[in-house]
């Protein structure tokens, strides 16, 4: 089975320009591909190599590079291996093509990424909000969104200052290490 996998991957490499492929283990393959070539690659993977199950689409934010990394995990029930196709798209404007016509589960993941990262997928059937319908802040999963600062500004904390603690503090004791000091 591994042998076949190698054969077709070699064929594939010849067909698509600018593809980088690394075998991580017997069942995990990582492919790096340019953003233009990804739909073609997925079409080939699905059509020729039985990678019919889209396990997930992950978005990783790399603000230093100004890019989003989109990772498409596709699983083949026949060769029993997983291909993770990595591609990078520019962070601005953050628009990419939907693969809904290839893989229907993509609709959920693309919708999710749209909400959480603000990446728009052209051709996706449904880009409406699903989880954050009552949220009007920035896309929360972007790295520049600081959840802790937002929480401190938005919510009140439960005051906790019982009498015995006050007594201790009068004598110079009490909580000597504040929570912010022990944050790693």
């Amino acid at each position, binding site marked *: 089975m591994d042998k076949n996998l190698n054969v077709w991957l070699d064929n594939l490499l010849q067909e698509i320009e600018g593809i980088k492929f690394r075998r991580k283990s017997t069942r995990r393959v990582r492919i790096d591909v340019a953003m233009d070539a990804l739909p073609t690659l997925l079409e080939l993977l699905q059509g020729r190599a039985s990678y019919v199950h889209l396990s997930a689409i992950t978005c990783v934010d790399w603000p230093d590079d100004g890019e989003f990394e989109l990772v498409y995990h596709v699983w083949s029930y026949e060769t029993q291996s997983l291909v993770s196709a990595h591609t990078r798209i520019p962070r601005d404007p953050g628009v990419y093509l939907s693969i809904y016509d290839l893989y229907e589960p993509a609709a959920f993941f693309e919708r999710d990424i749209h909400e959480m990262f603000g990446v728009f997928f052209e051709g996706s059937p449904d880009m409406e909000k699903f989880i954050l319908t*009552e949220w009007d802040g920035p896309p*929360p999963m972007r790295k520049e969104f600081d959840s802790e600062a937002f929480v401190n500004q938005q919510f009140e904390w439960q005051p906790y200052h019982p009498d015995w603690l006050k007594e201790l503090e009068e004598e110079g004791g009490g909580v000597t290490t504040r929570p912010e000091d022990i944050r790693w």
Partner: protein
Amino acid sequence: MKDIKKIEIIQRPPPPEPARRTNPLARVFDELVRFCQSRSMFMLHYCTGCGAIELPPAMTSRFDMERLGIQPMVTPRQADILLVTGYVSVKTLKRIILTYEQMPSPKYVIGICSCTVNGGMYWQSYATAKVLKDYIPVDVYIAGCMPRPEAVISGLRALMEDIRTGRGDAWKKYYQNYDFYLGNQQRLFGEKWQTPTDVIAEAHHYGMMTDQTLGEHTDLLEQNEVPLDALRTRLKARTE
């Protein structure tokens, strides 16, 4: 530093005795009604968070809450207690408040899990409200992540005792301090926040108006009040 074991535990002062009617017959009647109220609590069947996973064991064969007269009810109209089980995300909190206002009084709220006290382990989360009692009055908190069914039942028994002795009246606070609760709600949900229930009219009806009921937040509510349309769900034809 003082040895922590030697610190006396400060007893919380007993809450003031509730006012009683002078007529002895009326008193007996009140006692009876309160006893029945404490022995028959319908809880709302609403799982707001992960603590709800310990409610089925507490309800079913092993711990059997029906022994205490507690049974689940499916609509807020019939419910007496609202169990807020675990973290309340902002989206859920809106529904909790709507539900709470629809429940007929006397009504009681139990905050289960640490998350309802101070945000628990989701203190960093942008999506969850931290302190439940800022938004609705809470009768009993049951801490733990998550509290065991025994803890849930013991919390319910504490509430029963409070109801029987007439101390479980946190629901009155909602009418008496409506401005405070509404202010916190508006802070979270925006100035346009309004619910279908006319809480101020209900406060008038029950004679629970205090000077805390009305304030700047209720003024804001009246300014922004728009007549509510019939509830409509938004559906979109799905393209197959």
